[in-house]
């Protein structure tokens, strides 16, 4: 989706900035971001928390929006 | 065709009602008498949630016509406790966490009571086969079997 790249680097200090940056720099990701994504910050999954702070040392993983039974 | 008058005994109380000829006992209990403890899980005798006793015998009330209980004695979950004193099965089901959502619980309690009246000291296998007509989707039956056995032991000792 992100032009075939598995890992991308962006400047952002929270999830909202991260998502906005991603959607701008990698338009292929925009539709999925609009549909909703979960994010994993160092292994902990966050569903929609825009203002979760992130830093250069953090590993962020974009995941489809999570539901359950 | 007019509704049919039926005179019966429910949980020891003489009860009269009018019902249509094709109405099940379950519909009569739930819709006409306000006794909603018996549940409809399938309406075809496959789940046991509507279990009651009819003249002392365990039946699915969805497979009995309302008109059939004229002159009969019906026992439902509403009659199982004695005032504020729960039947040992009821109390032990709570103690042993033998229910989760609880929708199957009234039927299972009625069925288990009927088993222990007939066989006060059943094996686990006998309990499992007796209750095979009572579906439970939450518990995996394990705690139900244990609770029935604990209640059976207590009732034997009493």
């Amino acid at each position, binding site marked *: 989706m992100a032009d075939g790249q598995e890992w991308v680097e962006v400047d952002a200090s929270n999830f909202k900035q991260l998502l906005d940056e991603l959607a701008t720099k990698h338009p292929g990701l925009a539709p999925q971001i609009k549909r909703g994504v979960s994010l994993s910050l160092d292994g902990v999954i966050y569903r929609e928390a825009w203002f979760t702070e992130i830093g250069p040392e953090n590993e962020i993983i974009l995941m489809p929006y999570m539901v359950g039974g | *065709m007019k*509704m*049919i008058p039926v005179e019966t005994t*429910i949980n020891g*109380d003489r*009860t*009269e*009602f009018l019902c*249509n*000829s*094709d109405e*099940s006992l379950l519909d009569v209990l739930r*819709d*006409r*008498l*306000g*006794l*909603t403890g018996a549940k409809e899980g399938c*309406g*075809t*005798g*496959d789940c*046991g949630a509507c*279990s009651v006793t*009819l003249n002392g*015998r*365990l*039946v*699915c009330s*969805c*497979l*009995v*016509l309302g*008109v*059939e209980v004229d002159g009969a004695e019906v026992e439902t979950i*509403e009659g199982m406790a004695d005032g504020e004193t729960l039947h040992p099965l009821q109390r032990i089901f709570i103690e042993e966490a033998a229910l989760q959502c609880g929708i199957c619980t009234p039927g299972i309690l009625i*069925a288990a009571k*009927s*088993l222990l009246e007939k066989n006060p000291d059943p094996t686990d296998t006998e309990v499992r*086969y*007796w*209750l*095979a*007509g*009572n579906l439970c989707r939450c518990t995996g039956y394990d705690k139900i079997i244990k609770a029935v056995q604990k209640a059976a032991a207590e009732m034997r000792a009493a």
Partner: protein
Amino acid sequence: MHESGCAAFAPFAESWKTQMRYVKPESYEAASAVLVAEQGIARILTGGTDVLVMLKAEVVEPDLMVDIKHLPGMRDIVSEDGGYRIGAAVSSAQLGEHAGVKAMWPGVVEGAELIGSTQVQNRATMVGNLCTASPAADSVPALVTANAIARVHGPDGARDVPVVDIPIGPGKTSLLKGEFITSTYLPARPDNAADAYLRFIPRTEMDIAVSSAAVSLELDASGSVTAAFVALGAVAPTVRLVPDAGAALIGTKLDAAAIAGLVAAAEAACSPITDKRGTIEFRTKTAGVLAKRAAHIAYSRAGGKT
């Protein structure tokens, strides 16, 4: 109304549709008369465990329901000529509680006791099971191998009909308009005789037989089979008596060759269908397996030692 009934529930308006009529006739004759007079669909109510399911599913919408279980003898099990006459409204549970029938015809009782759940067994009857005429009816194969006789009451009085001749196809019986079964007769047994019934179901309870087999044997003093009847269920449009399968056992003590003959004859008698419950191959294979296993149980019950 029930005194402790809850305060708020909706009043019922009358259904506008012509409702099913429910009658409890006062005699066999009256029952026949009302059945003969009915222009629409009539059904007999004994245990109700099939007919009420069909009602619910809107498969059958009877115009008339005739409740006969209160009529004389309907709920009785009586000794007759060394055998037993079983009223048409005797439930499977009631049958299972009768020590005499259970000792003489254990296979018949185990067939009846396999109909549905504990709840259903307290209502279901062998006669109801027979008249539903399902090829998979659990109580029918052992009645067939027992050479049970149904007593049929009709407009012209009573007649006796072998149970095997009652079902003529799925959901169809040989009973004529105005006729209904009042009892079944299980004949007397010599010593060294027994029967057994087995069915295959995917679970341990609560299913309709995918295939089934009943075997009834009589042995001589040495343990050799002198009479053998084998019937299979759910492998043909009706429960099927398989004379070749019985013949394979006559004069034997159920040695391997006899059993092989039984299995081959049983499989050969199968003409099942593939449906949601099983395939042709599966039904055929398991019918043979069940016949073999039931034969061993019946043989052992009859006092035979292999």
